[in-house]
């Protein structure tokens, strides 16, 4: 009897442990989950999905980075609400995770081949790794239906081996935001249009005790917003693009020269020395508080500056040309990167692809109206209410001739991080331009 009791107790323990494990797994999620509007049901298989009817509901899941604090949250909520109203036959469950954690989460999901039907991703190399692993569904057929409203030029960062694997939503560029009140104190009533004028303006600002630029050293991508703009306006967009694409080597004298120009600006006290220990949010807050005259960063900041009531006080422009024999105005850093993609393992891949296009279009629509970036999709709605900064960005992009995607997005993860490592050394003035290019040539395989 004792043996039987012991055996039973052991079995109960084992069963209870399995039960706890499941329960704990569901509780440890750090994501913000948005409940579905209808009761979840078992997802139909691939053949069922293609012949789905209104009485045959389809379950779709979607992951993204639009958490409660994300400036795009409203755009996601509004777009998904529209989608669910238009498609009662689809149960869409979506959840948002913080940017950095999301990168880990989606990579783990791809590794385990347990991805959601639709997922947020960045274009170019980030998505490229997943495409190479065969985990992403090609959206060629669905794109053909939307080609008239989503220009092909916007699809460049989701195209691999001639096939499209994602739907872009918004696009952004690096802009030079200028505090006109501080410029006025230094005797300028306009944003410097040439490089020489910018240097003269910075000298005047320093003489007045105003710090020209703020840049976070704690987040190296923020340094690249400066450095890449300076390299582009020194070496030219085509040269930089070829380097990022791996078609040309970093051993480029113009790149070394551009690094020298950037470091000269640091040496001349154009940059806040405290920036090295600050996060980008802290630097941005300092700019909003009027500590810096200029802030070079993504144009997604336009919405926040507008919300802070700075639209009248701030202007946005592109960084001036440094070497006019190799670069010109209209060569920008940026492009469409925020993308929705569909998992190849999705049981309803075709429906998911159709849904991804519809949701992406809605996010683009509401995101543009909110001032979170420029639309990858051609607007077919009233855009007169958009804030003045975003309108200025739209003008800059309308006059652009070439865009180079951000280096850390354009290059593969390993290469991008080696590059970021060298960029941080440049910002701290540990290495010069020559050492920068030599180091990258040696370390990037």
């Amino acid at each position, binding site marked *: 009897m004792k*043996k039987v009791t*012991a*055996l039973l107790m*052991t079995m109960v*323990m*084992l069963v209870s*442990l399995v039960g706890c494990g499941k329960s704990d797994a569901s509780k440890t999620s750090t994501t913000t989950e948005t409940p579905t509007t209808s009761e979840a049901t078992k997802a139909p298989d691939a053949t069922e999905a293609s012949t789905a009817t209104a009485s045959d509901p389809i379950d779709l899941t979607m992951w993204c980075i639009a958490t409660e604090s994300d400036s795009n949250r409203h755009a996601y909520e509004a777009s998904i609400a529209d989608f669910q109203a238009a498609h009662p036959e689809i149960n869409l469950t979506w959840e948002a995770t913080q940017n950095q954690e999301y*990168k*880990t989460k989606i*990579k*783990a999901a*791809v*590794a385990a081949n347990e991805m959601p039907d639709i997922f947020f991703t960045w274009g170019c190399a980030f998505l490229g*790794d*997943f495409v*190479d*692993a065969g*985990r992403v569904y090609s959206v060629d057929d669905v794109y053909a239906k939307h080609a008239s409203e989503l220009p092909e030029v916007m699809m460049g960062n989701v195209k691999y081996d001639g096939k499209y694997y994602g739907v872009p939503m918004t696009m952004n560029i690096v802009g030079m935001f200028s505090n006109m009140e501080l410029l006025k104190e230094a005797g300028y009533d306009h944003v410097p249009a040439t490089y020489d004028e910018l240097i003269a303006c910075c000298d005047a600002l320093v003489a007045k005790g105003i710090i020209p630029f703020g840049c976070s*050293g*704690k987040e190296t991508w923020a340094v690249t917003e400066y450095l890449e703009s300076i390299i582009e306006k020194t070496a030219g967009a085509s040269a930089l693009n070829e380097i990022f694409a791996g078609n040309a080597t970093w051993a480029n004298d113009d790149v070394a020269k551009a690094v020298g120009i950037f470091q000269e600006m640091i040496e001349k006290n154009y940059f806040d*020395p*405290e920036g*090295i*220990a*600050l996060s980008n949010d802290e630097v941005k807050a300092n700019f909003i508080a009027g500590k810096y005259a200029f802030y070079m960063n993504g144009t997604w900041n336009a919405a926040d500056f507008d919300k802070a009531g700075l639209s009248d006080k701030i202007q946005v422009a592109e960084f001036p040309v440094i070497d006019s024999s190799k670069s010109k105005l209209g060569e920008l850093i940026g492009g469409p990167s925020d993308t929705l993609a569909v998992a190849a393992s999705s049981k309803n891949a075709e429906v998911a692809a159709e849904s991804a296009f519809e949701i992406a279009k809605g996010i683009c629509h509401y995101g543009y109206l909110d001032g979170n970036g420029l639309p990858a999709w051609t607007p077919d709605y009233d855009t007169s209410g958009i804030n003045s900064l975003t309108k200025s960005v739209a003008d800059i992009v309308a006059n652009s001739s070439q865009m180079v995607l951000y280096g850390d997005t354009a290059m*593969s*993860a*390993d290469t991008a*991080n*080696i590059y970021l*490592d060298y960029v*941080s*050394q440049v910002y*701290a003035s*540990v290495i010069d331009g020559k050492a920068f290019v030599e*180091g990258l040539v040696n*370390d990037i395989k």
Partner: protein
Amino acid sequence: MRKLYSNKLTIILFILPALILFLVILVAPIFLSGYYSFFDWNGFGKKIFIGLENYKELLTSNSIGFIKALGNSLLLALLSVVVQLPLALGLALLLGKGRKGERGFLSIYFMPVLISTVVIGQLWLKIYNPSYGILNVVLRSLGLDSLARIWLDRKTALGATFVPILWQYVGYHMLLMYAGIKSVPIEYREAAMIDGAREGQVNRYIILPYIKPILKISTIFAVTGSLKSFDLIYVLTNGGPLHATEVPSTLMINMLFLRNRYGMGSTIALLLIIMCFAFALIIGRIFKDKED
């Protein structure tokens, strides 16, 4: 007893749940890390067998900087042993004598251990803020402007990061040692005092030898904890600026989730495990020799 041992099935079944958890959660990942360390793998693509290349690159590449990261964590381990533990021991000896307000002091010293590391990290970030941080504000108000600086700059970041790490766990080690001191029979102390021993002599010849097993455990925890240190460094500097505060754990996260180098990340993980085991054994041996 013999009957119990002969009932092997019952023993095995009772041990099995814990054993399965131990093997699946602890042992299997170690072996898997060892396996992955022989591959060039981005986590989801094709694995390419490269033998010991990851180990070779890790120990020789300047751009990865593993040796520097290891040096930082060994320095932290050293500081833990020569600063944190003596401080904890001093506090434990003081409180162990049964002073007034003993429980209150215990709670105060132990409080940092209970607070989330992320909260502590954010707190110290504010303390170190070059513009409005209390450290620079106090220095400036005392006329010591020349000492005010960017504390998380590459020259001072390592020391600035170590301070909160050491501070946070002083209370933890103090509590361990305090428990040990409280378990020393009062008769021993009284007998020594009657024989004319001063307080310092009582501590040295009675208390310390008595709590040696606890000192050993504290040393092992301090050293292995330093080698594995991650959370506070991640919040404060994320290993920067310019890898000045890099430790093997932050480097491992960087390799795994930023650079997509699962093979290299696994190599660092395995080396960390081996080092922790090795240090635990070495410390155990040192204390054993002294006991002998």
